[in-house]
């Protein structure tokens, strides 16, 4: 491998940047095919109900409606995890949350489809619903899924080391309950799927299925489509067009992706379904509301002796990634600090709300908020600087943590040092004016899960490379570009290894017919795994090119250097001569600008011809070397794959499969905030975020990922929250959800730390998720520094901050309903809630035209 890189480590515009800035790139909803119909989904208006009947006849009679698909059209269950096949594309007998999928109208236009939705008659038998996880865990009857006793999706109880002994040895113990409310991805692109069938030329019937979809996991989608539609996988082609953001929200099979295929089969025509923004909120799969009871013990010197965590996650109505989420919450208590004793009790609970799934920082974020807040509190209890207490608890890698996680590269010490330096922590901490404060926190994340969802010995990533006589390098990868820069990373690695320019490399990605399997863009695995596969594929092709070039140059292939489109003998002083000759070509090319490239190629070709006659030489152009290799070997292709090494796959205990990774990224952050003590409003002024990404392959992208993670963490810390009332989402819009705009977003100073991982491609690790988790506690700790209140529930809204401030000053508790007319209804409800199910219903004004007797069951057209 070359010392010093020509492409790696240089700020590089993404290979698809122009597609995005010109509007020319196609996202799924931008694609239309001839004869395409539009699908619209009928959603359940009730959180928990049995479906007694569905009558679609009135809808089907509407002019312009082609068909209406219902549950029995494809009754096979599915789910992203093999242990969680509890979903149906369209409900069979029961709906489990407001927004559950009941039927799909296929029509010639969106307007007609929408009108037809109102003509579907569904008779529901309402069931008691569960909205609070701790209440739901007590359920005996009317279970959400019959086979899940007490509505418990899964519980895990892990003990590592001897926590009791650890707490007995502790000099200080802190114990508290933390709550992190539910947040969602809200990627800018609403989910969209376009499904079409081909007619089979042999049978004359519907044959192969092509699905274009906004997905992070095209191969899982192919697999689930095959299960539900009962089609062999090779008859299904999944193509991922540009994806407008994922953050985990597209990392599993969303019902619309399967519904579109079912609808296309029934309509015998291509069908596109695009979610409205509101439907995106209902589809959800975001970060669950999490209740964390945390206890930490430390010695006087700041060393942690034991941690005990009881975590309850409000998982929503289906399993989704839930089993993995609850395991991550426990497993990633380890691998950041050296904690000798850990007790973890995790409960993933079902409730009648949209399913939660994977979201950026999967499973770790909420527990990290609790842990880092508590660590700050403990530091204060023993009178230690919060940065120092973190430095006292560092791991000593290479090591294996008490819960079986292998840690090799470990940039955390440098992250803490740099973020402390840059933020002026030592000079400024505790010396800022009242109402302004600094807080520090750390976090980490996996660079790809070491064990895939579907257990097998298959490599997690495979990459093929084809190089042809034109000197063009085509890389075929199943990895999914979702905006994080995976295609660019792939091109950079291929170009660096082959010593060619980036312009030569074309990446064909995420098309199950063309690209080799890659399990998808989740758990921050792409750079590490698809990157390593690319590296290996490129090395394999390079070997063949080198062998042929070495023969031409009368040397050993090990003596060749591939760099900047030239293959040369190492250590020669031909560099100058070679540059001159190449420049000659460039000049002639520039002169022939009218027919441009074509003439340049001819000139280059004739130069090659001339050089060919000169006999052995000390260097060749990349193209010459490629031609020599093709003449010698025939087709020039290479393949590489990556599977995590067995040592990195974790321990043997139940649930040990989640948490292990070949490498972990590290982050340390300092946040500077001010708190308005009159209004409770928190303003984040700046965040310094140091992130150990192993090696920054493309610094501009790495910085973008760090800033984006911190920003999303800030959103969860301050404003973002899914507000529920009896199973109804109160804020299903981007403004109501309060996604921060540019005026609310602070400056983030990203600081890249490179620990050069021994197994990462060029030493790289993940950079897209690990920074998120530290931001929330860094802000919480800064709020404490500013005004002396410790917030235990996120987001830190003005109301929560003010409540805490009043409690601290022993003032009367905040009562937002103070002064409201006492004769107004005692419990005002905008929507039918749990009272509704008990037959009471919302009380309305006597003159309200909506006032009517409350039905015990109602049609879907309500």
């Amino acid at each position, binding site marked *: 491998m070359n010392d010093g890189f020509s492409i790696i480590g240089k700020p590089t515009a993404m290979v698809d940047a122009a597609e995005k800035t010109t509007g020319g790139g196609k996202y799924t909803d931008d694609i239309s095919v001839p004869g395409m119909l539009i699908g619209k989904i009928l959603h359940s208006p009730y959180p928990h109900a049995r479906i007694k009947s569905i009558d679609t006849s009135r809808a089907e009679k509407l002019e312009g409606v082609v068909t209406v698909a219902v549950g029995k059209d494809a009754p096979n269950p599915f789910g992203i995890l093999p242990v969680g096949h509890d979903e149906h594309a369209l409900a069979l007998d029961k709906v489990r949350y407001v927004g559950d999928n009941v039927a799909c109208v296929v029509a010639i236009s969106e307007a007609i489809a929408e009108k037809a939705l109102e003509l579907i008659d569904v008779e529901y038998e309402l069931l008691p619903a569960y909205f609070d996880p701790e209440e739901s865990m007590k359920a005996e009857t009317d279970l959400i899924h019959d086979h899940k006793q007490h509505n418990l999706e899964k519980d895990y109880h892990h003990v590592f080391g001897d926590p009791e002994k650890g707490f007995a040895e502790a000099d200080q113990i802190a114990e508290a309950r933390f709550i992190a409310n539910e947040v969602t991805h809200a990627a800018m692109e609403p989910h969209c799927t376009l499904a079409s069938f081909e007619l089979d030329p042999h049978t004359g019937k519907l044959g192969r299925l092509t699905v274009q979809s906004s997905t992070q996991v095209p191969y899982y989608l192919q697999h689930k489509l095959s299960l539900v539609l009962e089609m062999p996988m090779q008859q299904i082609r999944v193509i991922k067009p540009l994806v407008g953001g994922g953050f985990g929200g597209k990392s599993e099979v969303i019902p619309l992706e399967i519904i579109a295929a079912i609808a296309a089969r029934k309509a015998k025509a291509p069908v596109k379904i695009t979610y409205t923004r509101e439907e995106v909120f209902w589809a959800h799969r975001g970060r669950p509301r999490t209740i964390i009871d945390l206890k930490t013990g430390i010695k006087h010197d700041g060393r942690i002796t034991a941690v005990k965590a009881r975590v309850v996650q409000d998982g929503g109505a289906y399993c989704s990634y839930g089993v993995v989420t609850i395991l991550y919450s426990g497993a990633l208590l380890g691998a950041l600090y050296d904690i000798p004793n850990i007790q973890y009790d995790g409960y993933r609970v079902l409730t009648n709300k949209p399913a939660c799934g994977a979201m950026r920082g999967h499973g770790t974020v909420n527990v990290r908020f609790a842990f880092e807040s508590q660590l700050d509190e403990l530091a204060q209890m023993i009178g230690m600087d919060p940065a120092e207490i973190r430095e006292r608890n560092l791991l000593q890698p290479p090591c294996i943590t008490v819960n079986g996680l292998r840690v090799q590269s470990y940039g955390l010490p440098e992250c803490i040092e740099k973020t402390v330096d840059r933020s002026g922590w030592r000079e400024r901490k505790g010396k800022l004016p009242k109402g302004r404060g600094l807080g520090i926190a750390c976090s980490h994340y996996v660079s790809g899960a070491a064990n895939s969802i579907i257990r097998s010995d298959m490599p997690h990533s495979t990459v093929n490379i084809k190089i042809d006589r034109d000197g063009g390098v085509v890389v075929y990868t199943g990895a999914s570009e979702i905006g994080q820069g995976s295609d660019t990373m792939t091109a950079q690695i291929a170009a660096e290894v082959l010593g060619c320019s980036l312009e030569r490399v074309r990446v064909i990605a995420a098309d199950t017919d063309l690209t080799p399997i890659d399990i998808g863009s989740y758990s921050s695995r792409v750079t590490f795994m698809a990157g390593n596969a690319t590296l290996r594929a490129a090395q394999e092709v390079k070997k063949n090119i080198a062998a042929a070039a070495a023969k031409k140059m009368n040397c050993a292939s090990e003596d060749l250097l591939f760099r900047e489109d030239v293959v040369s003998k190492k250590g020669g002083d031909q560099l100058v001569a070679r540059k001159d000759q190449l420049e000659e070509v460039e000049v002639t090319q520039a002169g022939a600008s009218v027919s441009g490239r074509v003439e340049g190629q001819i000139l280059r070709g004739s130069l090659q011809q001339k050089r060919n006659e000169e006999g052995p030489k000390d260097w060749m152009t990349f193209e010459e070397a490629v031609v020599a290799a093709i003449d010698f070997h025939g087709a020039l292709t290479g393949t590489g794959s990556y599977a995590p090494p067995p040592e990195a796959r974790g321990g043997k205990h139940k649930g040990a499969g989640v948490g292990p990774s070949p490498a972990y990224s590290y982050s340390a952050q300092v946040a500077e905030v001010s708190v308005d003590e009159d209004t409770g409003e928190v303003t984040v002024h700046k965040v310094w975020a140091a992130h150990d990404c192993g090696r920054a392959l493309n610094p501009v992208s790495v910085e973008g990922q760090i*800033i984006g993670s911190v920003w999303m963490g800030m959103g969860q810390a301050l404003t973002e929250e899914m507000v529920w009332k009896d199973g109804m989402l109160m804020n299903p819009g981007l403004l109501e959800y309060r996604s921060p705009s*540019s005026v609310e977003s602070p*400056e983030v100073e990203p600081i890249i730390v490179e620990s050069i991982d021994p197994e990462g491609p060029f030493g790289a690790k993940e950079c897209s998720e690990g920074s998120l988790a530290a931001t929330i506690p860094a802000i919480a700790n800064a709020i404490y520094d500013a005004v002396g209140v410790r917030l235990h529930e996120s987001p830190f809204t003005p109301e929560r901050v003010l409540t805490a401030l009043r409690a601290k000053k022993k003032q009367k508790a905040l009562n937002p309903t103070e002064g409201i007319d006492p004769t107004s209804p005692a419990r005002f409800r905008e929507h039918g809630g749990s009272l509704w199910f008990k037959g009471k219903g919302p009380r309305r004004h006597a003159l309200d035209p909506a006032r009517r007797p409350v039905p015990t069951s109602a049609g879907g057209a309500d």
Partner: protein
Amino acid sequence: MKKELIELKVNGRTHELAIEPSALLLDVLRRELGLTGSKRGCDESSCGACTVLVDGAAMLSCALLAASCEGQEITTIEGVTEHGSLAAIQKAYGDWGGAQCGYCTPGFIMTVKSLLAENPDPTEEDVRHALSSNLCRCTGYNQMYEAIRAAIAAEKKAAPTAVGP
């Protein structure tokens, strides 16, 4: 609803179109004219992904009736590219990481175009204020500011007396 014939001038070209009077400009651009660069990110004028210029002013095409735009100059992201090459702002967004997933990018670029047309040398405060009409979930906006600064610098360098297209 019965369709009506209108003339719509988009990116300098006039199109005769039969549309429903209730058709939104965004839908007409995307479905009738195939100009899919303008995106639908929400349904409630909150995200700005559909921003286009109507007589030079940044407007949300999801909240405009196409029929009401007759006789006005509409510029979409497809009309920003200059003579087949990237405009300075487009190049800068790519170079500085202003676009990640790219879904909000066309809307942001149109907003920036309109800002710079009114105020060629905005302060960071002006930029933040202008961009607050659009939402992005990837970038945290920081790299967009760098891109905009770079684009302004590039424009100044390229043509000190430049007149916008």
